[in-house]
């Protein structure tokens, strides 16, 4: 059996990749994907921890809800990106420079 810490380490690495991807990539679509990656890392963490605290299914339930919420979030996010693309013809986040101090 694979030890639990392995899952956690993988989740941590995934989360890190997602976070770094979000911060360094200027493409909004990639940023969205990075966020999804982070959420999935969280799901993995929850499910892995659920093995430690096996007396209840809290972690698994949490993961279910995360999936649903992530889908809704992604739907709205893509819609926003789409409307941004329609107006500005780009999906680069540094093109958003109209709102400044």
């Amino acid at each position: 059996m694979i030890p639990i810490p392995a899952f956690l380490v993988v989740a941590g690495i995934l989360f890190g990749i997602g976070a770094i991807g979000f911060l360094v990539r200027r493409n909004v679509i990639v940023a969205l994907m990075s966020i999804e990656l982070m959420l999935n890392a969280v799901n993995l963490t929850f499910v892995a921890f659920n093995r430690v605290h096996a007396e209840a299914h809290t972690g698994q339930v949490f993961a279910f809800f995360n999936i649903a919420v992530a889908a809704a979030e992604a739907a709205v996010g893509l819609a926003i990106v789409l409307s941004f693309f329609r107006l500005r013809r780009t999906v680069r986040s540094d093109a958003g420079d109209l709102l400044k101090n």
Partner: protein
Amino acid sequence: MSLWFALSPLLILSAGGLLLMLADAFSEKHTDLALGAFMTFASAGIFAVALWIMGGVPAEVAKLVAPWIVLDKFTLFFMATLCLGGALSSLLAGGYLPEHGLDRGEFYALMILSAIGGVLLVAAGDFLALFIGLETMSIGVYAMTSFRRTNPRSAEGGMKYYLLGSFAAAIMLYGFALMYGATGTTALAGIRDALASGSFGYARDPSRLTTVIIAMAMILVGLAFKISAVPFHMWTPDAYQGAPTPATAFMSVVVKAAAVATAMRVLLVAFGDKFSSSWGAGWPPVVAGLAVATMVVANLIAIRQENVKRMLAYSSIAHAGYLLIGLVAAWGHGDPSASRNGKAAILFYLLQYTVTQAGAFGALILCGSKGKEAVSYEDLAGLGRRNPAVALPFTLFLLSLAGIPPMSGFFGKLFIFQSAIEGGFTWLAVIGLLNSVLAAFYYLRVLVFLYMKEPQPGAVEAVPMKSGYVTAAMVLASALVLYFGLMPGRSLDMAISAAQSLM
């Protein structure tokens, strides 16, 4: 009392939101949706108040939904506050959207559904409910922010808000996961017990300590993003400026109140144990630092703004700073009286802030019309003479934001600072007070333009609009600002009794 009645505000909001959605889909004209939304918020608020008057939800009913949803007086207070903010915002929307060609019924449905998220958020006694509430609220607000489909600023503001917001949510969620791993539960009270219990033993298992601290830091970051505390405030001015003004009002009122409420629950309940809430090793010094940074930075940047909406956004960040002072005071070195007063001060502050800030944005809406929205200071020039009926409530709200008695904002600030001094944070209170002087400067600047300047010759003048909805909101908000200002006693007592129920 049945559970149905105990949950009635939430159910009314849900039913109202779904009905409005269907009404939007099946009807041709959308004008009355604002009234529908207002009625939904109003009736939900009335049910919350009714529950309060009946002495709150009895324990045996409340425990049916515990620990996921906590039906204490704290929740009821916030339900009423959020409904008030929602009601005012929906009135604003009813005037603003048709005027600016945005009259699409989704807006009201989004607003109500988002408010459901807010209510769930303040009621959440478990990370799961908290997360669902947070996301429901945020998703609605993301959509509302980018509601002006043809306006690149709106899309840009919405995109930035969305990206940073969901990034923060992911970080916070990872914090939840780690906290769950460390304690084996996601219930707030359960986490507190686990952290406080001897069996958990920080000393015995240092790896858990590290996990807990990392988790706490991540959750703090997520909360600070939602409250828009410096340095996690970058999204706020952009989102506020880009969003249609009623959505801005909704964000700065409902979202902020719900975020602060959940911060109170998480920090004071889940992390309320001796260790994680100690000055030496817990969150209070971090929050105090955030408070100072938030007030100072936001006020200094706000002074430089040329756009009134953006200025109000920064001012809203600054107000978050005052609220964070209240949060530190609510911890209050564990002194029960200071702690109670600190919590109550935050509640009262949010109640009056809801009215004031919604009113201020409403007045800003009223200052522009189809031809030109009032956004810059110049657009407001001479309004005091051209349209005193708009300028006067605007003045009231600005004075309240600046904290000049006898407006409600003064009492809000006063009680925050009072509880801070009582909790032994005189230095925080003094910094806060000096910041109020700084803040008065930019609020006064609006007054200068309203009353003491005339528009540049040849400039396009923003013509004030006329709308029964917005006028009604103005009247309601002005009356409440003066009521909370002159007779804060009753609402303060309510805030105190709500504060006492938070544990």
